[in-house]
C-alpha cells in the first residue's frame, strides 16, 4: 500500500482510508489485478465496474473517447455479471483493500440481489448507480425521488454494510433527490456521474462518433458542475459525500473537499496524468495543506460553506 502522510488519513462510513482519493466505477475495474494496481498507486479505496445480475456486453465501439477537455463515454455498463465477478471481489478483499461495489439493475430486485452477493463476497460499501446516462433505463430512477426512495429502502433492508447512492447531475433539482435518498436510509451519496449526455459528430462522414451516438462527459470540463452539485448536496443532507468529476490535481481535491466531500473520486485524470495520479494528487494536496497550515484533511470538509 501507498503510505501517505498522516494529514490525509480519513474515515468514510466507518472505514479507515489512507487518503481520500477513490478510483470510481468504470476505471480499470474489470479485473481484480487492475483494482489492486490502482490501490498500489495510491488510491485510498477502489470501486468495481458497474455490476449487474446478468452478463452485459455493452455498446459497440467507440465507447470511450477524449474530446480534449474531458472524456466522453458510452460503455453501456458492460460487465460479466455478479456471479462471475465475485471472484474478482474476493481477490481484492484478500488484500484488505477498501472496496466499493457499484451495482446496477433493471428493477429493485436486481439491485438487492447484486448487493447481497457483493456483501457476501466481502465488499465494504454498496454503491447504487442509477445515474448512467448511457443506457436506456427501464426505470427513470435517477430523476424520480419517489421511485428512488423505494429502491434505496429495499437495498438498505437487504444488506448490513453501508450503502451509498450515485447521483446524476442531469436533473433539475439535485438537492431534492439528495434529500429523498437520505430520508430513505442511504448512508452516503456519491456525485457526480457523467454530465449531459453529449454528442460528437464527425463532419466528414456526418455521423455521430460514439456507437451509442451519445455519451456522458467527465474530466476537467465538468469540474465546476461537480463542485456545484456537491456544494448543493452538502447543504441538503448530513450524510457523507464522495465528490467526483474532473478532479485532476491536489488543488482540485482540496476544492472538492471544501465543497463538502468526505472522499473524492479520481477517474478521468488517469488519462491526463497516468495511473499514479492518486499518489501525485495526494502529494500535491499534502503540500498545499502544509503551506496553508492545515494538519488534517478533515478540517476543511465543507469549508466553503462557512461564509
Amino acid at each position, binding site marked *: 500500500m501507498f503510505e501517505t502522510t498522516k494529514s490525509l488519513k480519513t474515515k468514510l462510513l466507518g472505514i479507515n482510508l489512507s487518503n481520500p482519493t477513490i478510483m470510481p466505477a468504470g476505471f*480499470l475495474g474489470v479485473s481484480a489485478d487492475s483494482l489492486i494496481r490502482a490501490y498500489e498507486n495510491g488510491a485510498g479505496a477502489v470501486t468495481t465496474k458497474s455490476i449487474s445480475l446478468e452478463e452485459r456486453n455493452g455498446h*459497440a*465501439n467507440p465507447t470511450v*473517447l*477524449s474530446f480534449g477537455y474531458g472524456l466522453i463515454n458510452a460503455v453501456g455498463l458492460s460487465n*460479466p455479471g455478479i456471479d462471475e465477478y465475485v471472484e474478482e471481489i474476493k481477490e481484492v478483499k484478500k488484500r484488505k483493500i477498501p472496496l466499493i461495489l457499484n451495482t446496477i439493475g433493471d428493477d429493485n430486485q436486481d439491485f438487492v440481489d447484486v448487493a447481497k452477493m457483493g456483501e457476501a463476497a466481502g465488499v465494504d460499501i454498496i454503491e447504487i448507480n442509477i445515474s448512467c446516462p448511457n443506457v436506456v433505463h427501464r426505470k427513470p430512477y435517477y430523476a424520480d425521488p419517489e421511485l428512488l426512495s423505494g429502491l434505496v429502502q429495499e437495498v438498505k433492508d437487504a444488506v448490513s454494510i453501508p450503502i451509498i447512492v450515485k447521483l446524476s447531475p442531469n436533473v433539475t433539482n439535485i438537492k431534492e433527490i439528495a434529500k429523498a435518498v437520505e430520508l430513505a436510509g442511504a448512508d452516503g451519496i456519491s456525485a457526480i456521474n457523467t454530465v449531459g449526455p453529449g454528442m460528437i459528430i464527425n463532419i*466528414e462522414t456526418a455521423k455521430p462518433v460514439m456507437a451509442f451516438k451519445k455519451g456522458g462527459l467527465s474530466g476537467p470540463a465538468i469540474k465546476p458542475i461537480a463542485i456545484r452539485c456537491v456544494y448543493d448536496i452538502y447543504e441538503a443532507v448530513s450524510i457523507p459525500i464522495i465528490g467526483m468529476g474532473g478532479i485532476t490535481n491536489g488543488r482540485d481535491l482540496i476544492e472538492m473537499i471544501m465543497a463538502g466531500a468526505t472522499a473524492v473520486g479520481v477517474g478521468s485524470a488517469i488519462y491526463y496524468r497516468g495511473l499514479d495520479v492518486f499518489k501525485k494528487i495526494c502529494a500535491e494536496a499534502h503540500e498545499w495543506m502544509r503551506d496553508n497550515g492545515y494538519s488534517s484533511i478533515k478540517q476543511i470538509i465543507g469549508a466553503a460553506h462557512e461564509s
Partner: protein
Amino acid sequence: MSHNTDPNNLANNFAKYTALPRTVKIKKVVDETRKIKTFFLDTKIWAAPGQFIMVWIPGVDEKPFGLSYIGNDTAITIQPKGKFTKKMLGLSVGDRIGVRGPYGNGFTLKKNACIIAGGCGIIPLAPLAEMIKNCVVIIGAKTSEDLLFIERMRKASELYIATDDGSSGAKGYATDILRKLLKEKTFDVIYTCGPEAMIKSVFDIAEEHGIETQASLERFMKCGFGVCGQCVINGFRVCKDGPVFSSEQLRKMTELGKFARLKSGRKVTVKEYYNWRS
C-alpha cells in the same frame, strides 16, 4: 498577453488531449494473400513499430490495428475475422475511415535480433525488421497461402519460413526453427507477435536461453488509452502498458496464453476468447 492567444494555439492544446477519430481516405489497396489486404492511408502517422491505431468504420465499430507501414507510406494490413474486418476488407480507394492514435508503446530497437511471427503477427514486426536491418526473421503460418510479407522480409533479413503442412519452407512450427537456430547462435533480443500460444512458447524458449523477449499482445480494447481497463492481462493494460511487453512483465503474467477477457469483461480461456463470435 496571456489570456487570449491565437487560434492555432487553442487548436494545438485541444489536439494534445483529443482522442477523436479523424477521417482519412484510403489511398491504395494491396492484396497480400487470398484473404489479407493492406490499406495505404492518405495520412502520415509517425510511430514506433508495435504502436497501434484505433480504426473507426463510421456506423460499424472501432478496433485496434498495428501499423504495417509507418510514416510517409502509412498502412494497416487486415486479416478477415469478424464483422469489422470483413467490412474493412470491402472498402476501396477513396473510402473514408477514422483513425486515432498512435497509442501504446513500441518495440525498443536492438541489434542482433531474432523476429519470430505467427500468421498475422508479422504485421507490426515487418516495419521493425526493416528498421533493424540484417536481423533473423522466422515466419510461421498454416499454409504457404497464408504467408504474409515474404518478399518484403526476404529483402530486409535472413528469412526462415515454417508452415504446418510444409507447403512452403520447413514443415512444422516457427518455434522449431527458433530452437534449431539457438543451437548454433544466440540473440540479444527476440521480438514476437502472433497467436498467444506461440508467444508463450517463444517466451519459454527465450527464458531457457536467457534471452530478452519483447512480445506484442492482443486483447479486446475500448478506450485504447488506459482508462477503461477492458484490455487487461493481469494488472497490465495492453493498450497503455503494452502492447509490447518486456520479459520482466511477461514473467508476471499468470494469464499469458491462458486467459483473456470478452467484451463483457468475463474471463475465459484464450481458446474460448479466440473462438468468440466466430
